[in-house]
Every structure is written in C-alpha cells, then in structure tokens.
C-alpha cells in the first residue's frame, strides 16, 4: 500500500513542455490531446509583466469528485497506490466526470482534431481505438485507462500507472537519478530537465516528497473543494502552508 503523490516546484519550472511531450509519447496520445499540459498565466501590463508557468497533471485526489459523478463506476480510486483511473471497458463517454472535475484534467477528444490536418486519416485506428501511432509503447491495459484509447471514452493522466504500479514494495521515492527506481518513474517526472517534479509515497514519512511538502510548504490547490489532491505545488516560500486555509507566516 502506498499513496503516490507528486510535488511540482513552480520556481524551477521553465515551461519547456518536455513533460507534455514525454507524456504524449508514453501514452500514445494524438497530437495536441495532452493529458498533462503546462498552462501559462500572465499578470500586469507591459512593461511590468510577469508570466508564470503552471504544469497541470491529474491531481489524483483522495476524494475525487469524478468518482462520485461517474454513473458506471468506470472511474475509480485504485486501492493499492491511490491512483484515480478510468476503466475504458465501462466508460460510456457521458462526460459527467468532466463537468464534476474542478481541475479540468479530463478529456473527451473524439469530436474534432486538436491539430490539423487530422492525423487519424494517416494512421487510422483498429478495433475501435482512436488511432494507430507509428510509435507505441508496449503497455495496453484498458481496464486501467492505459494504452491507446478507444473511441467514445473519457481519458486522463494515469500517473503512469503501468510504470508506477510495478515499483518495488515499500520504496519511498521514485527518482529518475536512482537506477533502481528509474524505470518506475512517471514519464513527466523522468523527463523534466530542471527537475521541477518529484514523485514518491505520501504515506512514507521518509520520502522526499513529504520532506519537500513540509520544508517548502507544499500546497494543495483548490483545497476548499475537499478533493484533497495528491499533487502538491511549491512556490518560493510565499505560498500558504497545508492546509491552505491556515493563515501563518504571511511574508
């Protein structure tokens, strides 16, 4: 039993989108249909402008609204590692979860190609899958929402379930620099050039993610929704501590 969590250090993120590309390659996504993206946020007017990068994977909440909204129990909270996953065998593509998710990290992409021209015409999908990518990973596990997605279902970030779930039992951190855990590290974490992402077991007090959350006051976003994300953000010490409602140390 583990509770996998991610820490994203916004001060280190350079907005290079390497994570987005790594995720797209790993999960055979159609061009532009990114399960994880780096959004940007600009403030002020020229010449006093600041722009901030904001990577957004699925938060894999402890109390996910999407799971409550799903009418077919296709979306579920996996018990072993705390992943929020979609069973594509059961999903009817009703999009009730997309209305429910406060973070907007669920995708239904059947209607319109995000990037023109439509590459599905060049690599048409077989057996009801959305396409046949020229490169594809070996993993294929529709009941955990892993692999090339079928048509007519909602899809989302899996925290690279196909890698993380194979990690040795009891390991505290999945680090791309540790040869023992490199292969089990999620694609976006492994690829991040400035090492803005950390991945580990939130239930293990010795894990790097827990230390970072404690030392740098990691923040769960939209905490008032009660969803309790398992993705924490760090931001230069100016952020609120967990829980975000605790008004301490206003710099």
């Amino acid at each position, binding site marked *: 039993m583990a509770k996998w969590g991610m820490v994203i250090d916004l001060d280190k993120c350079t907005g290079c989108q390497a994570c987005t590309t790594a995720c797209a390659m790993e999960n055979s996504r159609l061009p532009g249909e990114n399960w994880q993206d780096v959004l940007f946020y600009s*403030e002020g007017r020229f010449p006093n402008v600041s722009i901030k990068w904001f990577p*957004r994977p699925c938060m894999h909440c402890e109390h996910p609204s999407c799971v409550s909204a799903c*009418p077919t*129990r296709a979306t579920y909270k996996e018990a072993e590692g705390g992943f929020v996953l979609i069973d594509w065998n059961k*999903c009817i593509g009703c999009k009730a979860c997309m209305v429910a998710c406060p973070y907007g990290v669920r995708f239904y992409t059947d209607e319109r190609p995000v990037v023109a021209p439509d590459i599905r015409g060049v690599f048409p999908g077989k*057996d009801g899958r959305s396409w046949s990518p020229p490169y594809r990973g070996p993993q294929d596990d529709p009941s955990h929402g892993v692999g090339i997605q079928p048509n007519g279902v909602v899809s989302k970030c899996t925290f690279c379930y196909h890698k993380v779930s194979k990690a040795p039992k009891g390991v505290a951190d999945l680090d791309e620099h540790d040869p023992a855990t490199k292969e089990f590290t999620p694609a976006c974490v492994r690829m991040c050039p400035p090492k803005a992402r950390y991945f580990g077991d939130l239930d293990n007090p010795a894990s790097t993610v827990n230390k970072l959350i404690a030392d740098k006051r990691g*923040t769960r976003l939209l905490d008032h929704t009660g969803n309790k994300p398992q993705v924490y953000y760090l931001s230069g010490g100016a952020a609120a501590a967990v829980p975000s409602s605790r008004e301490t140390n206003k*710099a």
Partner: protein
Amino acid sequence: METGTLLTLGDGLRLEEGACLPLRSHFGQCRACEKACPAHVLSVSIDGVALAPGCLGCGRCVSACPTDALELEGFELPAALPAGAGAVELECFKVPASANAEAIRVPCLGALSPGRLAELTERAGARGLVLVDRGWCGTCSAGCGATHPAKAALDVLALWLDAIGAPDRKPRLQSRPLPAAAMPEAIPHTRRDPNEQPLSRRDFFRRLAENPTGRPRDVSPMGASGRAAFPATGRHQSRERRRLVDALDAAAARAGTALPAELFPRVTNNGACADHRVCTAACPTGALKARADAQGARLEFAGEACIACGACTRACPEGALVLEAHGGARAPAVIATHAQRTCEACGDAFAPRGDEALCATCAKSQRFIRDAMSQLYRARS
C-alpha cells in the same frame, strides 16, 4: 440495444449485459425483473444481476424487462401459428399436452409482455387470441395470489386498443378449469432437451469456469477487440417497445386512427439545458440525440423510442430535463437549441451562456489557474 455479451444467470435464464438498464449506469435504476420475480430470487445492482437458487423458470422477469434484456431458454414464440380457424390459444407449461394439443405453450401466462401479446394478437388477426385460465394460478408458486399473472399485460394492451378504437381483437382470458390435483408442483422444464446427455465431469467444471453465476462484471467485452462496453454511439430501440408500437400501428391502421399521445413519453427542458450532452450518453434507446451544425446545437427527443426509464433526468448535471410518462409526440422534436460559438482558446464549438468567449473546459482551466495563482502567490500580490 447494442448486442452485448449474453451472460448465463443460471436455470436457463440469460441476460444481455448491454441492454440491462441498471448494469449500464447508475442512471438506470430499473428493478422491474426483481419486482416481477414471484420466487424473489433475482437481485439487481450495478455490480450485476444475480440469480439465487430457486428459480421457477416462469419467465415473468422476461416479460417485465422494458428492454428485452432477459431471455429464458425454451421460451420462444413459434414462427407459425397453430393451424385451424378457431381462436389461437395460449397455455402454460404446467397444462398437460393432452388437455390442449393445439395451443401455443409458454412457461407461464404472465411471461407474456404487452409487446409480445400485441404482436401475437396482430398475428392471430380475426381468429382472436385466448389465454386459457385453468384456475390454478392462485395456488401456483409462480402465481400472484388472487390476480391472474397475465392480467397486468392484458390490461395494458386493452387500454391501448381501446384508445386507438380497435377493441374488437383484444386478447381474452378464458376460464376453463381443470382439477387442481392435475397441476404439477413445478413448471415442467420442457426447455431442456430430453435427449440431452448428462454433463461430463469436465464439461461441468468448464461451464463453472466460463460462467461464474451472478458475476457479470468480470466479463470484459473489450479485451482484444478494443471496444468499449457501452459506447456513446450505436444505441438502438428496445425490441419490446418496437413490438408494441408496431402491433398497435397495424391495429390503428385498420381502425383508421392514429396512436394516442398517451403512448409516447414526453421529455421537456425547463430552460437550464447547457449542452453538456450527458443525457444523450445516458439514454439507452437513442430517444435523445444531440445534433450540431451551422444553425447551432440541438437536443432532439423522439417519443417513439423512449421507454420512460428516467435515465436522462437523473443524468442531467443541470437538472434541466423533466420526464412525463405520457402525452408526448411520436416524431423527433427539438427540446433545446443553443446558438454555437467558437471557443477563443481551443477552437471548439460550444454553446455560450451569455457572452462567454471560452468553452466550459477552457473557462474551467482559466478559472482554476487564476484561483491557483492567488492561492500560491497570495502573499506577494
């Protein structure tokens, strides 16, 4: 309904997984078969339909199912009616063949749904349809006390035939009692082939392994074929509904009338519809359809296909739909229209509420990032 896996529940009862409303989603809260079962051995939940030991094989669950998802082995109406000029008679399996050799035999007279009765009535034509009541049903374990098990379906059909002004061919219940002592205790399992060899030990275990009774969700219809179990596309009308509407159509054509509005359910929009289209995915029969073109997005409802299951009203995130069981129109009618606009961020067409420039997904992302930034950098700004 889409052709799904046919699951063996046991005792010759099979279930088409894709057609069963509660198995499809939480929105379909149908318990018709469970309520109809006189032995109380059927139980329905989203995890599956389970059949406890003690099934009588009466088939009353089959007639109760609004989507024709259940089928009972050996319960098939014959392709050809019995010869002769007299009324076509229906007998239950318990009545000895010697008592009425000409009759069509069904497991229980209560196993005939209104649609099946209507279809048989049409096929019998001027000969008429007679359900023979042997006076046993009150004491039969598959009966329901003082009420005849076929009465509900007969009443429904009679109501519609009266309403369209064609009451002349209504099926009748005719009392022709036999001594109660002649009634066998159990419904004879004529559905089993008498020449069937007993199962070999190997076959017995293979069957057990292939059909874990009452565990339908373990069967994964996707697997190698890569097909979602109940995709949002490809919904079809319920066969039971089709039979009833077709037979009543024929009767109405004879009588020179039209089908009454009471036959068609009505779904209306209270104005809150926001074009989420969750209802169209929840609708098991395709009665609700979303269309979008240059003129805008529309939600269409066709009363002909609707079985009034209520899935759409439970599915709507805005609570916009109201279902009435009667009083609708047969042909597809538009119940919601939305002018469409192109989202400034992603380029998707969407239905704006007010003067929104972003689609719901992009607006949510923008709102989220703004909230996140104020939460993360609150002290600085």
